[in-house]
């Protein structure tokens, strides 16, 4: 009955307000249609675009993040005590990441801090490895390959990504495991007798992560290099430049925004990866996301997990901004 009443009042209100709305509507419409964006896209499309983007930004990104930030400054309380006297803002979740428990012998919480540092360094390593692998491929596709070759290469790069991420990670396990393809083959060849534990040495993890983001590295660089006039490469060559100088002075400066955008994405995603470290990480090594996951899941301490996640996010953004500053790339260039 309650629902019916709401609908009923709404309809009644609409009918009563209708003359008022109609009078105002004409005025409103002329104001709205004066906006360039509306004039270009039409009323319906602009409304949809605005609503979709706003909804996406607010509900999917801003609100959850704000909620998480708020969460990270609270105590982990049982449901009964939420809203009670103990439910106050506190810094202890952040304190814990840095200093650990007061009862600990060490001053700092080295266990988690080292995981955090290792994650950042390893992500930088994965990003650089990807860059080294993908820049030549992107250059080849953009400037060297003829039409058909380039298309075939793109296809060969994309098709493996139809395979699910988890499956791909397990495939790397099979490849790198002690009884895996690579070990069996090398033992068969007699390169070594004892299987080498690639997974313990994190080779599997780095390989898996690098491979996971290869497309995100290639395509922004490809786009950037493709827009380079081939004559510039030939001009540099004609003036006597060896290949490395052509890249150093002509191709890379031109592709810098693309390289920056690709590296940003790969770094962010590597630092935030969970599945690959979970499956491919060595038994003794942890990824920071795994720690966060543990807080949320097995630890059941959401505020603590939120604090960790927030620190990771801020650290990543700060790092990327710093690197962009050093290499003199602006955000505007990256989105070009």
């Amino acid at each position, binding site marked *: 009955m309650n629902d019916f009443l709401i609908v009923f009042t709404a309809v009644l209100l609409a009918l009563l307000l209708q003359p008022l709305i109609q009078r105002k509507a004409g005025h409103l419409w002329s104001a709205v249609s004066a906006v360039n964006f509306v004039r270009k896209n039409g009323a319906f499309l602009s409304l949809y675009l605005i609503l979709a983007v706003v909804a996406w930004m607010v509900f999917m990104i801003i609100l959850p993040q704000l909620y998480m930030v708020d969460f990270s400054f609270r105590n982990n309380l049982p449901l009964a005590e939420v809203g009670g006297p103990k439910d106050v803002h506190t810094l202890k979740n952040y304190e814990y990441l840095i200093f650990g428990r007061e009862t600990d012998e060490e001053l700092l919480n080295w266990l988690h801090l080292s995981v955090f540092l290792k994650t950042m360094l390893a992500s930088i390593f994965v990003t650089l490895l990807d860059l080294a692998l993908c820049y030549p491929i992107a250059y080849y596709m953009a400037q060297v390959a003829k039409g058909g070759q380039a298309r075939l290469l793109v296809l060969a790069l994309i098709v493996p990504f139809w395979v699910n991420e988890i499956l791909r990670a397990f495939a790397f396990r099979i490849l790198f495991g002690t009884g895996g393809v690579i070990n069996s083959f090398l033992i068969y060849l007699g390169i070594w007798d004892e299987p080498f534990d690639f997974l313990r040495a994190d080779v599997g993890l780095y390989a898996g992560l690098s491979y996971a983001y290869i497309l995100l590295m290639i395509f922004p660089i490809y786009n950037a290099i493709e827009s380079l*006039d081939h*004559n*510039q490469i*030939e*001009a*540099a*060559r*004609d*003036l*006597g*430049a*060896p290949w490395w*100088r052509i890249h150093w*002075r*002509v191709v890379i*400066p*031109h592709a810098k925004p693309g390289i920056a955008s690709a590296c940003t994405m790969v770094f962010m995603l590597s630092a935030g990866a969970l599945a690959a470290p979970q499956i491919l990480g060595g038994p003794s090594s942890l990824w920071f996301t795994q720690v966060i996951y543990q807080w949320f899941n097995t630890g059941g301490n959401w505020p603590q997990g939120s604090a960790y996640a927030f620190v990771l996010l801020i650290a990543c953004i700060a790092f990327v901004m710093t690197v962009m500053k050093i290499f003199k790339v602006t955000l505007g260039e990256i989105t070009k």
Partner: protein
Amino acid sequence: MSADVELDHLTIRFGDFTAVNDAHLKIEGGEFFSFLGPSGCGKTTILRAISGFNDPTEGKVRIGGKDMRGIGPNKRQTALIFQNLALFPLMTVAENIAFGLEVRGLNKLARRDKANQLLDLIALKGQGDKLVSELSGGQRQRVAIARALAVEPEVLLLDEPLSALDLKLRQHMRTELREIQKRVGITFIYITHDQGEALTMSDRIAVMSAGRIQQVGDGNSVYDHPQTAFVASFVGENNPLMGKVLSVSTEFVTMDCGIAKVRARNLGKLKVGEEAYAFVRPENLKLSVGAGEGEGSLPSENSFTAPVLAEAFEGSVKLISLRGPSKKPIIASIPNTGDGQHFSQGLLTTVNFDAEQAVALPIGDLADE
């Protein structure tokens, strides 16, 4: 230092397509040499073969007497100026000019000195710290020349570098290029589809069509003594009249071209009975109004009557289109004397020309308009 460039039976194929067919010529050191031809005639391919970006399929390219096979563009004593200039947009003007020196390991100070020296040469003194995008079209042109000259090449290759400029600037750059060439004294090899450029700047010109070199010679000989129908129709304006050779004397042939009997210089060693073209340039046609002094008194040769199709005013000259025997009108160019005389449409005119100013050549491909 300047080097000579020799094309030794050079043939370049891309798959089934023959871009350059048996090009054989020698460009002397210090010469301003042009390859002239319509787009797609293979002239750019020749240039790229000299600079090292294309390999000969057959034959050889020799620079300074040395076979260039296997020597890359970065190892040749040539510098190429690209059609779109290909300046480096992320470098300053001075960095652009000094790029070749940077490659050769010169230090910053020496590079700066040389760049300033060249900026003086191209009249852009003090503009070395600007970005290329801040320069005008003509200035960029000069920067491209300076960048190429900085590496002190023995041969400078230019691929239609003036085509992007407007008319006035283009004419100005022609004289400037010629002056620069005289000053630096190196071999210039110039590619163009613009006969005006080729004729004004070059010591010698090679006219090309469909991968073949049709004729090599200085401007006068290419213009006045064409050896093929293509050269006659491509270099300068020309009116082709098709006909059959009636008689041959030592220097002249007489042809029956339908509208008239035509006597013309026999440049193609024509024989009686052959089909041939007689070419007369628009400026060599003399027009008079009316059908002459009655049908009977028409001179027996090199004269015919034709109605006017249109008149086009070009400033110093007027171009009169006349209805000829083929679909293409016959064009006559008469000096504008300012007497206000008009050749209105339909007016009947009598056309005369001297046998010395007409040339007869064997049938061959004509240049497309």
